[in-house]
């Protein structure tokens, strides 16, 4: 449902940079999940975890993966169908993902330097996505489609 804009060359409201970011985010998150999981396993062998912390870290990692999947699906769908509601829900879930990535960078039981670096790259991607989400919602909402 592209909007009809008199005299405007492009009828397409979907954001190409946002779509690119979603795709790269999905791919990078696979790498991040694997890296964090392997580092947690390494830490559990080399360092001693207090009671319950290992289960908490692993549970939050898997919750983050599920949240990421839902977030990316809603974002891609909303961007392609030019629906602002889906992109809005995706933006709200991005906040949750940001908090979880900060957890793995700062509040985790043991934080390695590599944890901080992969987390920082992920946060940069989330930040750019949040900005492009807002511009996309603005574009979709003001089109009277």
């Amino acid at each position, binding site marked *: 449902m592209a909007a009809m804009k008199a005299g405007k060359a492009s009828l397409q409201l979907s954001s190409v940079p946002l779509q690119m970011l979603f795709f790269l985010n999905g791919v*990078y998150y696979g790498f991040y999940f694997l890296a964090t999981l392997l580092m947690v396993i390494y830490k559990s062998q080399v360092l001693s975890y207090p009671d319950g912390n290992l289960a908490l870290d692993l549970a939050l990692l898997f919750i983050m993966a599920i949240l990421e999947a839902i977030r990316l699906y809603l974002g891609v769908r909303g961007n392609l169908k030019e629906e602002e509601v889906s992109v809005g829900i995706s933006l709200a879930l991005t906040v949750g993902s940001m908090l979880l990535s900060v957890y793995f960078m700062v509040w985790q039981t043991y934080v390695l330097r590599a944890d901080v670096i*992969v987390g920082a790259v992920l946060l940069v991607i989330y930040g750019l996505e949040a900005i492009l989400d807002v511009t996309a919602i603005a574009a979709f909402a003001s089109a009277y489609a």
Partner: protein
Amino acid sequence: MTTISSLVPARFLTLTAHLVIVITIFWSRDSNVLACLPLQYTQEQYQARDTELIVALSVTLGLFVVELAGFLSGVSMFNSSQSLLSIAAHVSASVSLLFFLFEQWSCTLYWWIFAFCSVLPAATEIVIFIAVFGLKKKAL
């Protein structure tokens, strides 16, 4: 190319993995600097070697910006030859830098890794930039 090939995510991931390792080495370059100093060294010698390694790592990060700019702006995202070269270079860089970090290789070896695995893809990237923007050739 109308379909998304699997070269695009592979190239992005190898680029990011190389970047992560370079930043890690930046953070913990002490053992590598000690590996290329003689047993009895002065503080000035240490500083000189340290500065050399910092310069090498910073230039690597600068070349990363060039390559990421070319990749993300679409100039060479779908160029298969550049993608293959980039993937091969960054995979070899990631593996060698992993050894560099964990086996505490001497800091002079970094220049070799830098030449083959950072300068080469960045140079071809610049060639593609010139071809697309300067000579107005369609992105290959």
